[in-house]
């Protein structure tokens, strides 16, 4: 994992972000409101419910905190380490084989002519 770029960033626009931090308008904040939102139809909610029993078991288990994993590459059994390793690899400009993004050569921009 490289330390010079956030895992979830492409790395492009990092200067832009830095500039924005010094922008006088950068006080800009964001807020959300969620009025009566229901996610009952989400299948993954059912997964959560099903996992509840398993989590109860976890309450009594001794687990190793992810925070103690200094090098994610050495902890393949830790899901967060694996996620961090993967996202670092995808953001890395060096081809990492299986985890490399296969970039597409884009057509020149053109108006929406509805053709595929």
């Amino acid at each position, binding site marked *: 994992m490289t330390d010079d770029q956030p895992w979830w960033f492409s790395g492009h626009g990092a200067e832009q972000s830095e500039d*924005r931090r010094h922008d*006088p308008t950068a006080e*800009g*904040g964001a*807020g*959300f409101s969620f009025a009566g939102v229901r996610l009952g139809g989400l299948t993954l909610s059912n997964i959560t419910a099903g996992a509840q029993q398993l989590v109860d078991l976890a*309450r009594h288990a001794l687990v190793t905190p992810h925070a103690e994993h200094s090098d994610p590459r050495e902890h393949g059994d830790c899901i967060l380490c694996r996620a961090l390793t993967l996202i670092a690899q995808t953001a890395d400009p060096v081809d990492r084989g299986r985890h490399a993004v296969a970039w597409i050569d884009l057509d020149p921009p053109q108006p929406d002519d509805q053709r595929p």
Partner: protein
Amino acid sequence: MARSLEHGLRAASGEVAWIDRVPLGTDWGALLVRAVPGLGSRRADAALLGLGDAGGVIIEMLAVLDAVDSGSDVVWDAGDVDRLLRGWAFIEFLTCFLPDMVNESLVGPGQASAGEEFDVTLAARVCEIGALLASRATRTCLVVAPNHGVESFVTDCEARVSLLGGAWDSVVVNQVPAVDGGWPEPWAGRRRDRLATLTAWRGGVAQVPMLVEEPGDSAAYEAISERLALVSPCSRPDDVVVQAHDDGRYSLRVHLPMVPPTGLRAGVLGTTLVIDAMGLRRYVPLAPVLQRCEVSGAGMRGDTLVVRFERTPALWPEAS
């Protein structure tokens, strides 16, 4: 400002659950245990602390989910725009890849470990966060000051949230000098002009007057909070569409309004389309039918990214 909005919203719509920013260094454990019922492990606390700002966004969103599940209307102060968008992008990433990674972990024989059990729960909740952020029932508010460059700043924010599939339903312009307030000109006039530009450009713009003594804006924010609560939703980018063509090819259309084509990249990572622009990445899971195809090209058509796919012969029945 946020707390004043809360007071105003309470007055306007009754009880509102308030989710504030969680400062780094605080004890997140109690909040996590509350957000993920039954989670008694300190593993989550430690793990999410390690994720920095993105971890904070995830924790706050877990609290939002908890409040939503209990039937409350919720207001979340998401803090700095960059922080929010980075966290959102990270949640998008986790939503795409975490479920498969968890499934891979659980494929092995034997009883799931405690860590794996936690992973299942966290993965499910993270997916719910992504759905809630993108929900058309969610209202988003961008707060800016009418300083030099605010127009381009708002444009940039519009484009970046659009890349992630969202939109700002309202824009609050703070510290606007009143015409007869005795503020020095032309400084004050320029600030009002910038507000006028934003108002002409888009709907859902509210202003908060600049006051002589700060902080003294509570009443002003409370005054606009009812309007914010009732703001009409701004249109979101269209849903991602897969089109089947008569010649057996397919195309994937991703609506990206306001996203500048310059510098935009698109690629494929496993079974996910990656769109890279403005320092953020959007992750779009490929439908199963597209996973049996190869990309034959892509390009922007107006404000829509169209990715063309052709069947991979080895993955299709010969008769099809």
